[in-house]
């Protein structure tokens, strides 16, 4: 193993900030009380919880009463999609073909409860055409779920246009909930549910250098949501179970960084991604960027994710070859690569079978450096040439 380690799998998970690790450790050692306990230990723990809640709320520009801590992004999404059903008359959900499996599989489960699900297609960049949403909305649509940034190709959905479509539809008193999976957008783009009129929004701590196993759902006030779990009524009755205080404390610290630096860093991350994409495409003839065109003025292009296909190669082999040189990337999303099937996202974008197999995802973070990108371009070019020579 070479000494050099370049971690470019930040959409799978990120390396926690040292201050996050410290906060988690401190909470475990010092604030081990149960936040519901009446004594001093309980009060201290509940204070830690409160601080973290303020930080997360501030990072989203919302009130603390609107934040529900969950056991991660997947749980937040499930709570949003399944919890919304019982309080509503409608039985129709609209989502897109490129959502995370948490959304798509939750929708599958909703079908079993008699819900009709419309899955909207996307264009070649992985982007939804808002007019299609407009045409699909029905009287009995109770929920629309659209992701902010796609985890595999980094396509940014046109949330403002979607907001306009939904605002239009709601005129005349029609009620429906809008859920946004902002797991990959959080910390990279401005995430402001109130400004967009979003009702439910999911984020996850470990994608922004926080701990794993903790996330949050933003819930617009007075929204009826049936909890997934029955229990002691923590989190305003929306998520029972003793709070994961230490992880939430770490989340709070990560959220402070998000609130402070998110957009400032996005420009820097984007320029690194552009350097990577330009470098690799120039060095490897035939390589193709999947997803949005990599340009600063392209509103569909997320700053941190680049999905590149190397025709004729298997992504997995390239992944391991880069691993040998200390560079960590992924094929598709980490969850999809385990299933050994082509990515549903790339398929939805109309990517051909050969390119599907040879797709590799590079995902950057604020920790990524220019030197790392230079090294990655150089090594990718070398490795790919070596592999092409073998086949």
């Amino acid at each position, binding site marked *: 193993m070479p000494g050099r380690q370049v971690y470019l799998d930040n959409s799978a998970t990120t390396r926690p900030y040292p201050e996050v690790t410290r906060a988690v450790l401190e909470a475990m050692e010092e604030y081990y009380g149960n936040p519901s306990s009446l004594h001093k230990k309980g009060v201290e723990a509940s204070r830690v919880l409160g601080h973290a809640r303020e930080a997360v709320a501030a990072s989203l520009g919302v009130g603390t009463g609107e934040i529900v801590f969950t056991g991660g992004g997947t749980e937040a999404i499930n709570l949003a999609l399944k919890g919304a059903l019982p309080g509503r008359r409608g039985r129709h959900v609209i989502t897109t073909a490129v959502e995370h499996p948490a959304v798509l599989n939750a929708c599958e489960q909703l079908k079993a409860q008699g819900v009709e699900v419309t899955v909207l297609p996307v264009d070649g960049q992985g982007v939804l055409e808002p007019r299609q949403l407009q045409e699909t909305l029905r009287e009995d649509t109770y929920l629309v779920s659209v992701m902010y940034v796609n985890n595999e190709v980094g396509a940014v959905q046109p949330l403002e246009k979607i907001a306009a479509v939904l605002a239009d539809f709601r005129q005349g008193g029609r009620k429906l909930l809008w859920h946004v999976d902002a797991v990959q957008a959080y910390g990279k783009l401005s995430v402001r549910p109130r400004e967009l009129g979003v009702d439910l929004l999911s984020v996850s701590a470990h994608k922004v250098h926080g701990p794993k196993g903790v996330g949050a759902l933003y819930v617009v006030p007075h929204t009826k949501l049936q909890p997934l779990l029955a229990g002691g009524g923590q989190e305003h009755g929306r998520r029972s179970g003793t709070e994961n205080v230490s992880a939430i404390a770490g989340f709070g610290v990560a959220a402070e960084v998000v609130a402070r630096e998110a957009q400032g860093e996005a420009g820097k991350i984007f320029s690194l991604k552009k350097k990577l994409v330009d470098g690799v495409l120039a060095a490897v003839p035939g390589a193709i960027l999947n997803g949005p065109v990599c340009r600063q003025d392209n509103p569909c292009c997320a700053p941190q994710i680049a999905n590149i296909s190397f025709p004729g190669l*298997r992504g997995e*082999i390239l992944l*391991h*070859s*880069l*691993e*040998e040189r200390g560079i960590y990337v992924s094929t598709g999303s980490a969850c999809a690569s385990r*299933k*050994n099937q082509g990515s549903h996202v790339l398929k939805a974008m109309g990517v051909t079978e050969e390119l599907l197999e040879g797709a590799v995802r590079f995902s950057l973070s604020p920790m990524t450096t220019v030197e790392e990108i230079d090294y990655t371009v150089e090594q990718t070019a070398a490795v790919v040439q070596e592999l092409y020579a*073998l086949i």
Partner: protein
Amino acid sequence: MYNTYMIRYGEIGLKGKNRPAFERRLMDNVYRALKKLGSPSRVLRVYGRILVESEAEPSRVLDILSKVFGIVGVSPALRLPLEEEAICEGALATMKDAAARVLLPAGAALIFKVEARRSNKQFPRTSPELNGLIGGYLLEHFPGLQVDVHTPKIKVRVEIREKNAFVYADDIPGVGGLPVGVSGKALLLLSGGIDSPVAGWMAMKRGIEIEAVHFYSFPFTGEKSLEKVRDLCRILTNYTARVRIHIVHFTDIQKEIQKNCPEELRVTLMRRMMFRLAARIADEQGALALVTGESVGQVASQTLESMRVINQVVDIPVLRPVVGMDKLEIVSRAQTIGTYETSILPYEDCCTLFLPKHPATRPRLEQALEAEQVLDIESLLAGALERTLVEEVQQPLP
């Protein structure tokens, strides 16, 4: 309730002069396997049986014993003092326990018999007397019983030994075979597939101690596929104390073959290199044979022609225990052993990058020899062996 296990080992009994060595090995293997319990146990040899004493949960003890090769059957038993009353009570407890597992039509009587054996002639009652005495006691204390010495549903057995009496009813079949180690050592070519772990298990069943060799082609396969091989070895350690894995760095050999040899012969040549490497490791480790999961005709490289060309590079025996099984049989055996679920995980063990579209199904030796001319075989083998890692997989002790 049981605190003693009587182990029968039929096949060993047939081995004449070797018998003491075989018994010692079996006792050793039983003792080592029982360490997993984390509580003390005793292993004794008495009168052509092995006796295990353990206070651990009987289902755990039986589970462990059911995976020790060489055991033909196990009876969980009560070890009792040489007193009539204690023996009668023990027989009743055993009867109740055994009866709970017998399905009877409503109202039907439970047919049983008592089979007493008195090898300790100091004991004041003869075997027939004991049969009557204990049988009577059971009839009196357990409603719905009926004696029939010819077709009993339950046989309550009583053995009067020198210091203790033993009472038992169940006879749980063991896995059979010979104790691992009595037949020497062999080297198993272990891929991540379904067949090779089964082949290894079957070799172990014949008393062969196994070391494994795995050909690792990083970066063409990844750490996850290697972890899968380790997991398979871990499952095999349910049947033997430990498995050592030799992880051979195979990448450079694959690349050389890929670059320099005709496409249709790649698989044949790769297998020849694997056999050469395995034979050298076997030699070093004192292994007397290779074991593979090959089965005739399953895939292109497993035709007899292919096997012959591949086999030609080694002169130690190559055992192919699954050659007599079809795929379904192998799968079902893998399920019984517990390796199947791990084997079917999707991480590939042999990179498809290197698999030709039309491999030669009937390669000729001259073709292979000619194709190999361009390879510097000695230095390739040396390079691969130099970068071979050895790991030991052991059952974690509690």
